[in-house]
Each structure stands twice: as structure tokens, then as C-alpha cells.
């Protein structure tokens, strides 16, 4: 069991077979989280570095715990400023980590494409933990993991993604992954938050939340950053909530057993109401557990890769 790839930079180029393999491995490894002794030797002798240029709580914690549960040596670098502002290039930082014997680097970066740049210049495997507005593949994998657990499979599901699609790497990765797995995706948000030519990514863009949610299997909210209002993309969060929030009224239009999802952290009362987030169909907390399992699977599968390491 291993992935025949060095890096996981996004779901755009990941096949259905690979996604199935990752989700299957996550299902197996999730058992570890239910044990009293959450420790396995899967990653013993492996070193993993998380390199975060942007704040993160759940993604970072779940990678760290995944490494620790599986006995990897792990270290963390966090930098509020970009590598450029810090005065060292990303490539140089990557080479330094390489020379310390790092097997796998988990990177989060505010600029789209940064993990791709890093991956090109290091021997270590690279996992993208979110780059700018581009991709957040491990989030989409955990979302699909959660959907699959509840729905048995992904093919034929209809998923509505509601909110700030333009700035969302979660949305992009979910679109790639869900389309690859044969699900249908609808997206909805105010026009300023829907990027140009979105339909060409193979999704259906709807004008209203009601239309997006009608009859779907999954309703996924996206986090709305306050700075979108400051940037002039929205008049107010109040108006946003009035027209685009996922609330109980909107959820009545979805299938009776539709899942309610959100990558977190939640802006309660903005993109999703508390009533919607906390109702029984909500799997928001379960997503977090799936996140650890999916990351355990990825750390395992990538460090076990049969990939021929290129010479320096």
C-alpha cells in the first residue's frame, strides 16, 4: 500500500483510484483514534515537518497529532510572515529541511502555488495544507471521507457549496475531488465571491441559495472572512447572512437526510446559523475526526511511496 507519487499538491491531478486508496486507508487508520493507547509504529523512523506561513488550528493540530499517533519524529515551523519578508526564500528553507533529513513537509502558505515551488526543489515529499486560494486537498479528502461514511459512496451525490467560493481553496479542492469521484457540484454565493468562468470547472453556479440546496445530499458552507466586506466585495455581513446564510429554512429544501458540513472555523450567524450548525444532520464535528484519519493515511502512504528519489 503506497501512493505512486512524491507529493500531494492538490486534487486536480489525483485519480479516483488514488482517492479511493487514501479514503480506504483512512478508514482503517481511524480505528487507532478509538483505541485507548493511540500509538502505532507506522511512521517510526520517519521525520515530518509542518511549515506553516499562515495561522491554522485544526489543520495543523491534526497533522501534528497524526504524526505523533504514528510515532514519527515531528517538528514545527510557524512563521506569520512569508518567506520573502523573512529574508529567506522558500526554496532555501526547503533545502535546509531536506538537509536535516526531513522525509515529508506539510506546508501552508498564503500564496497559491507555493507548495508546488517547494516540491520542485526538495527531495522530501510535500503535502499542501492550503495554498492561497488554490487548493486544500487534505480538507477535501476529509470532507469526502465524511460523505462516504454516511452515504456509502460519492458517485451520484449532489453537493452544494455555499459562500465565498472565489477565495476558497476548500471549494476548489472539493470541486476537483468530487467531480473526479462522480459527484455533482453546485456552487452559490454573491456574484463578487464567485470567480469568472466557474462553470468551466464542471460545476453548476446557481443564483440563489434555495436553488443550490434544492434536493441535494450535502450542504457545505464556507467561511466568510470579514476582510471581504472591507475590500468592498460585500456591503455588510448582515446583508450576507440575510441572503446567503445556511439556515433551517434553506435546509428544508435539501434532502431529508442531507449532511451539513463546514470546514471550520465557523462564523456563527454569518455563513451558517447556530441552529443549522448544531442540528442532528450536521457532521461538522465528525469532519474533524475524519481529518486526523485522512492525514494519518496520507503521511503513511506518501512516506511509504516507491517513488525513486531524485538526486539532489
Amino acid at each position, binding site marked *: 500500500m503506497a501512493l505512486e507519487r512524491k507529493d500531494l499538491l492538490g486534487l486536480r491531478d489525483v485519480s479516483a483510484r488514488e482517492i479511493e486508496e487514501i479514503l480506504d486507508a483512512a478508514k482503517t487508520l481511524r480505528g487507532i483514534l478509538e483505541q485507548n493507547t493511540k500509538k502505532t509504529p507506522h511512521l517510526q523512523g520517519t521525520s515530518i515537518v509542518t511549515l506553516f506561513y499562515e495561522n491554522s488550528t485544526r489543520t495543523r493540530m491534526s497533522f501534528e497529532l497524526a504524526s505523533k499517533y504514528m510515532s514519527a519524529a515531528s517538528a514545527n515551523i510557524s512563521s506569520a510572515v512569508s518567506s520573502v519578508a523573512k529574508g529567506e526564500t522558500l526554496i532555501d528553507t526547503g533545502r535546509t529541511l531536506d538537509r536535516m533529513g526531513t522525509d515529508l513537509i506539510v506546508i501552508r502558505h498564503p500564496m497559491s502555488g507555493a507548495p508546488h515551488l517547494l516540491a520542485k526543489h526538495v527531495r522530501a515529499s510535500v503535502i499542501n495544507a492550503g495554498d492561497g486560494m*488554490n487548493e486544500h486537498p487534505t480538507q477535501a479528502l476529509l470532507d469526502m471521507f465524511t460523505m462516504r461514511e454516511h452515504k456509502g459512496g460519492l458517485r451520484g451525490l449532489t453537493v452544494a457549496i455555499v459562500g465565498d467560493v472565489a477565495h476558497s481553496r476548500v471549494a*476548489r479542492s472539493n470541486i476537483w475531488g468530487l467531480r473526479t469521484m462522480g459527484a455533482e457540484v453546485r456552487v452559490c454565493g454573491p456574484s463578487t465571491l464567485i470567480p469568472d468562468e466557474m462553470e468551466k470547472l464542471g460545476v453548476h453556479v446557481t443564483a440563489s441559495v434555495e436553488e443550490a440546496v434544492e434536493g441535494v445530499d450535502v450542504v457545505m458552507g464556507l467561511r466568510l472572512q470579514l476582510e471581504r466586506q472591507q475590500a468592498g466585495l460585500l456591503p455588510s455581513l448582515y446583508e450576507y447572512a440575510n441572503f446567503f446564510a445556511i439556515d433551517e429554512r434553506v435546509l428544508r429544501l435539501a434532502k431529508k437526510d442531507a449532511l451539513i458540513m463546514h470546514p471550520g472555523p465557523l462564523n456563527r450567524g454569518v455563513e451558517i446559523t447556530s441552529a443549522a450548525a448544531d442540528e442532528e444532520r450536521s457532521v461538522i464535528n465528525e469532519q474533524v475526526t475524519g481529518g486526523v484519519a485522512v492525514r494519518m493515511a496520507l503521511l503513511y502512504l506518501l512516506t511509504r511511496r516507491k517513488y525513486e528519489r531524485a538526486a539532489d
Partner: protein
Amino acid sequence: MNGLLIKNALIVNPKGKYKGAGDILVRGGVIARIAPSIESNGETVIDASGLTALPGLVDMHCHLREPGFEYKETIATGTRAAARGGFTTVACMPNTDPPADTPSVITFIRKKAAEEGAVRVLPVGCITREQKGKELAEMGALRAAGAVALSDDGMPVADSHVMHMALRYARSFGILLISHCEDPGLVNGGVMNEGYWSTLLGLKPITRAAEEVMVARETLLAQALDTRVHIAHVSTEGACAVIRSAKARGVKVTAETCPHYFSATDAFVDGFDTNAKVNPPLRTDADVAAVKAALKDGTLDCIATDHAPHHIDQKAVEFDVAANGISGFETAFSLAYTNLVKTGVLTLDQLVTRMACNPAAVLGIDGGVLMEGGRADIVLVNENENYAIDASGFVSKGKNSPFDGTEVTGRVVHTIAGGRLAVEAGRVVI
């Protein structure tokens, strides 16, 4: 010096009397004679059998980076790269350090070019002091020092009032303003063209309107003032339409595009290739088609390189922070020949008009023609040679090209600049 004799060339010379098969005799920096057959008399003979002789190309928009950014390019290296690309005259933009907003910088560039340059260099001065878009530069003094035109290239003159006054003041001196059209508010931090690819890659988009609203502004200001304006590096379908309609109304607007706007699209950015990061950004297939059509119908008068060499350190970084620009001298002719002449958009005669005759006319300089008594600026090209572009072999310090590895047709073989053989068989020899 006994001069040069070019034998057996096919002469393509849109503005000159002599066209067709013939020989060209060069003596003392000028063309002494053009005739069907000239006997050699001790001159260095260049056998141009199978080659086409064109007037030396004129690039009205490039960056030589000196003074201030000599690690990216110098006048010495940049003009050699220009010669290798078939250019014998280049107009260099003023965004140096210090910027060319004073006569002393213009004088420095001219002096340096005279000492170290391989081709004629015509410096462009700034429109505003330090290119800040606030106070006018000393246009009269810049003109007197030898500035061929004025531009804040790289930085748009954002304030419409400042541009209005600049055009009005420049009119007093008959000096041409070249406008870098880009509304900074609409750019809003974007790094690539807005469309399918920006959506797919999650890179901050730049709407085409950022360019188009300022092109519209410049044409309206020029119309109101009944004065000239030149639009730099046109890249969108909409900008072509605005210029076309302005020309139809009799507005004194001229415009240029660059090889990358008819040879590449925003799909080149895939993989976050920083060599495809340029300003204005690479656009879409529809824009490429519109730019070609506008070159064909004369809406776009000129092809300029916008040669923008960068050091690898400014490109081997995250896309958002990578420098804008393409090293363009050494690929311009081949890209134009391949994508315009081979495809039937332009005849070679029309291509030469847009790469030599029109830029010379817009700048109001001699050149762009092969004629007896005229400057001996001649380029010999092989129209049938196919090759793959190799950026590592550029003479320019800037190896930043999204066309590395691209198969092209039509190659610059020899360049004679001011009577000197600058490039022989594709190699710089001065």
C-alpha cells in the same frame, strides 16, 4: 575599413524603392548602394543566398535596466541581445534607478550606449517625476537631452488630471507620450488575467477592464486635446476595439503589442510558471485572435518586445511575488514570423512594417528602410529555418522566457547595426 557587401539576398523593404533579389553595399555606416548585382572590391562579403534582407528592426519598447539594475541587464548585454534578435534600434524605458526623469540620466544612457552598445539606443524619459504620477518631469529638458519619447512605463499615470496636463504640456514640445494603460484600482493586487485559469489556479485575477478603461481614457484625452498618444503593450480584445474606434474617429492614437500577446495565453501560467508572469498579463485565445486581427487591419501599428529581463532570484519565488516580465529580444522575430507570417495573418512585408517601419515613424526617427545614403541597419533572416528556442543560450542576462523549448520558424542570421557586423550566423561578434 573596406565595408561589407551582402550578396544574393532577397530584399524585403516596404518603405524603400528597392525590393527583390539584390546586393547591398555598406560603407562608413551607411548603405552605399543597392543593386541587382554589385562586384566586390575588397569588402567583406556576406553570402546571403537563401536569406532575406530586412531593414534593421526597431523596438520602441524595451528595458535595458541600466542604471540601477545591472544584475538584470546592462546596456552592453541588452543591446547585444537586441542585435541577436535583429534589432538595430531600441527605445529603452525609464524605470531604471534612478529613473530617467532628469536630463543627466538620459545623458548617461546615451553616453553608455555610445561606448558599449551594439545597436542604437534611444532613451525614453519619464512623464512624471520618479514615475510617481504626481508632478510632471521636465519634459523640455528631457527632450533636449535626447529623450525620444516619454513614458511612465511600468507604472500607469493613474490620476486622469495629471495625464491630461501631461499630454497638454507635451504638445508644446511635440514629444510623444507612451502610455502604460492599467487602472491600479481595477488591478487590485491581481497577478494574472481573470478567467478560467485564474479561477482554476486560485491566483488573484486582473480584469481586462483594468487595461481597457485607461486605453479609453487616453484616446478621449488625446481626442479632446487633438494631440498624439501611443498605447503600449495592448493585450486585450476590448483595448483593440477601443483603439480601432478611436482611429475611425480620427484620434491621433498609435499602438503597439508584443509577441507574447499573440503567441501565448494565460494557460501558460499553469504550473505557476513565473516566466509567464508579465504585465499586462497573458490573456485568452479570444484576445490573441483579436490582437492578430488588429495587427492585420492596422489598429495596432507596431510590434515591440517589452523586453524585460529579470534575475533568476526574482523569478524563483512564489508566483504572487515574482517579477513581471519576459526576456523578449531574442525570440521576437521568430515568434512573430511563426505566429503571424507562417499562419497567413501578415505578409513578411507587413510584418517588417510593424517591426521596423512603423516604430520608426511613430518615434519620428530615421530607420526602418533600406535606402542608399540611409543608415546601414540591416538584418538577414532565414525564413525556412526551424529551431527550438533555448533560453539558456540567450545573450541577454535575463533567461526568463515562457517560450523556452518552443519550436519556431524564421531565424535571425546576421545583423548589421550602423554599418557594423554585430551578429554573424546567430552569434554576437562585437
